[in-house]
């Protein structure tokens, strides 16, 4: 590992004066970055700062307008991903680059296939190689499972194995831990440390500051496309990093104040829901959320939280039981009726449910009420009203976009998330359902969204919060329900809850079971 006083070896990677302009934004503005052999170099920056763009340039997915890239001191011109791979660069992308209908083995081998002769794949040898690769890094995997049937945590592992398989000298990981639980993150960190010790150089991107402090040898911070500082973990802390990223002091934990729960807003009675494969994912859940309180659902991903939430907002049929919203039965109501009844939903997968990526930002911001006044007059859209509202929400939620007219798909991951949150929170609500509301958001945006959620609560909205981040649950929830294998196994008071106890309940459901069972791949 490199320390500041050790003799400095030539950087394995050097990016000099990289500039990349998109219409209306300068995503990278003369960025300098150097990564030494065996170093884990963290890249920090708020949403839209230009981290992904910089790494796409390194990987040949985007061309810089200015600047140079040097590998081991030699200037190179990277013409595309195949060229990058040939030069020993590999990348785990922010959004999964997996073919859902392919098996784990096929996904890992694609592009670098194990061959039997010049034409045919050697599937047996490939399978063996992958099982062995998994073992080497501590994952037990079945290479024949279809990737589309895996939980996001396992998909992330497959992405990482895919990069490890190629044995890169320089490995880039763009928010690999955004969807992982702390245990899963620890596994990945162990792998990264080992790679670094073997002399690989690693660029690590994350919005979780404690992770960065734990794993990085050096930290480079960028803001609005420019490098604004470099730190060593020993010389800095979360507050300092947050301030450097955002340009102002950030309150990392928001004071939630007193809650004043009133009547029951939503009541679930014996709710049963099936998952995509038709097996029961939610097993008879009874739950109440009162107006003016935040109920957090803690649980390892894949224990039925998504199905529960989707049933409440009408995206999934309840197989049994009842959902009542202030006395009215909404169990089998359409999503639009539920929405009009005052329920808002921030989905966990913004690409699948929250946004139409090919539509302009403005249209995405009125997706829940485009058909109503003032956005429509009869059959005709009122573009002025849509535009005005969009501008207002963009300003209020600090969405970094060149204008309201660009396609939502061109925004950075975190800014896409802000679009969804801005749309869903700017209405009068009875119930707000938040599923991983801050996935991929920077600390400043998390603070802002947490404040908004608490303001909603204090205005009398009932809030149901699902998050894989136990810290987020503990920080916001007035009550915490732990979900395990489709059941609510415990409910605790948010103020007095003990983190270790909740963590244990999440892993075992309160029984003495091996925690691995709950995080293994879904089959």
């Amino acid at each position, binding site marked *: 590992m490199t320390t500041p006083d050790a003799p400095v070896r030539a950087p394995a990677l050097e990016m000099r004066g990289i500039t990349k302009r998109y219409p209306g934004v300068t995503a990278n503005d003369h960025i300098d970055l150097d990564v030494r052999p065996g170093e884990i170099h963290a890249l920090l920056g708020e949403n839209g700062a230009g981290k992904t763009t910089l790494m*796409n340039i390194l*990987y*040949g*997915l*985007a*061309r810089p307008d200015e600047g140079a890239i040097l590998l081991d001191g030699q200037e190179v011109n990277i*013409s*595309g*991903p*195949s060229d*990058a*791979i*040939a030069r020993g660069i590999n*990348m785990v*992308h922010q959004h999964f*680059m*997996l*073919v*859902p*209908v*392919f098996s784990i083995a*096929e996904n890992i*081998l*694609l*592009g*670098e*296939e194990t*061959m039997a002769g010049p*034409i*045919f*794949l050697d*599937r047996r040898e490939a399978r063996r190689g992958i099982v062995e690769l998994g073992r080497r890094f501590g994952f037990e995997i079945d290479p024949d499972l279809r990737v589309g049937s895996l939980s996001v945590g396992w998909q992330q592992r497959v992405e990482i194995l*895919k990069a490890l398989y190629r044995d890169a000298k320089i490995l880039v990981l763009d928010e690999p831990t955004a969807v992982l639980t702390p245990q899963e993150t620890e596994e990945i960190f162990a792998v990264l440390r080992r790679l670094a010790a073997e002399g690989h150089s690693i660029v690590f991107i994350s919005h979780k500051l404690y992770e960065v402090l734990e794993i990085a040898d050096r930290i480079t911070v960028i803001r609005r496309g420019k490098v604004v500082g470099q730190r060593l973990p020993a010389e800095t802390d979360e507050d300092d990093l947050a301030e450097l990223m955002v340009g102002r002091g950030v309150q990392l934990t928001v004071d939630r104040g007193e809650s004043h729960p009133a009547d029951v807003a939503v009541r679930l009675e014996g709710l049963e829901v099936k998952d995509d494969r038709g097996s029961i994912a939610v097993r008879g859940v009874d739950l109440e959320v009162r107006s003016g309180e935040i109920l957090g659902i803690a649980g390892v991903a894949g224990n039925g939280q998504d199905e529960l939430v989707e049933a409440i907002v009408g995206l999934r049929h309840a197989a049994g039981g009842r959902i009542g919203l202030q006395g009215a039965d909404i169990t089998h109501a359409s999503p639009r009726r539920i929405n009009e009844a005052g329920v808002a939903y921030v989905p966990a997968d913004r690409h699948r449910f929250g946004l139409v990526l090919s539509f302009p930002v403005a249209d995405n911001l009125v997706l829940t009420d485009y058909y109503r006044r003032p956005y429509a007059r009869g059959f005709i859209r009122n573009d002025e009203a849509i535009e005005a509202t969009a501008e207002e929400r963009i300003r209020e939620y600090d969405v970094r976009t060149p204008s309201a007219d660009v396609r939502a798909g061109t925004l950075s991951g975190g800014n896409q998330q802000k679009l969804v949150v801005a749309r869903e929170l700017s209405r009068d609500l009875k119930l707000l359902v938040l599923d991983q509301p801050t996935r991929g958001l920077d600390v400043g945006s998390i603070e802002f969204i947490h404040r908004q959620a608490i303001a909603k609560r204090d205005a009398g909205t009932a809030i149901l919060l699902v998050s894989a981040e136990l810290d987020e649950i503990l920080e916001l929830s007035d009550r915490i329900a732990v979900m395990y294998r489709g059941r609510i196994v415990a409910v605790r008071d948010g103020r007095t809850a003990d983190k270790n106890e909740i963590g244990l309940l999440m892993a075992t459901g309160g029984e003495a079971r091996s925690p691995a069972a709950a995080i293994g791949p879904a089959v």
Partner: protein
Amino acid sequence: MDGLINALYSIPVAGVLFQLAGYLVNVVPDISPLILQAATPIALAALCGVMCERAGVVNIGIEGIMITAAFVGWYSGVLLVPVLGTTAIGPFGMSLALVVALGVALASGVVISALHAWLSISVRADQIISGTIINIAAFGLTGYLNNLIAKTSPNGAGAFTQFRPPREVTDIPVIGWILNMFLNQGPIAMSVIVLVVIFQILLFRSRWGLRSRAVGEHPRAAETVGIDVIRVRYRNVLIGGVFAALGGAYLSMEATNSFQQGMTTGRGFIGLAAMIVGRWSPVGAFGAALLFSSSTALGNSIKFSPPSGDLGTILTSLPDQVYDALPYLVTIVILAGVVGRSIPPAADGQAYEREAAT
């Protein structure tokens, strides 16, 4: 034995079903070579569809490629006969003129496919529109040129002839008629089964197949592992053009020995349906084409030589149009009842934009 059969036939309702089975057992072996012949152009069109769509390019210009190849193959024969003569140089009535003409026909298919590839992959035009343009232009041009040429009633290079399997082979009990189906054929029809098997194996077991499928499912993921999405798509569309052209050439160089205006009569589109029924796999598509052609052949057989007995009375009382519609009805029933939801490759029909190029 006959007594038993007659007894079975006379049972009400069930008897009619026994009669139907008896009729099929009698008729199918006789018409089996015809079934494969009718399936050949449809199956080749379907293989073209599978080849393109597995890599994410929708090709509804197959019909146009087929008619072009049918015309070019026949007319090249006309032009080549005076130069190369019609002496047979091999089996299947092959003459040099015929073989070279077939090569030219296949090349014409590749050229038209290249146009579709360029429009839909490089220009990123709407793939449906590109295919439609190809169909309209191909029908118009071949029709017009045929009008000009046909006036002179030229002599073509003839057609490939069928192999006649010896009686000892076709008389083998139980499987004889199946062998007859595949052997009592010209070279193009005979090659279909070989192409289907090779294509099936390569698509699911070779590196090329894996990469093609990846490009059709998630082109960006394919690019991030270093696969050249554009190149894979071009290659597959061009190879697909060879399949479709072979189907077109079959019509004017093997099934008949001349070109008729519009002689493809929708087989390219039926091939696309076979591709869907066959779930984008070569073997499935071939099966669907066989199903379609066997219901056509059976319909014809019932129309022209209906069975006797109760069954015959019932069948002949139905209007002819029912038998013309039979293949389509069977396709709908199979699609709805047996195949279920047939899921296309995820990126099918979507142009791919390589970001680094901008």
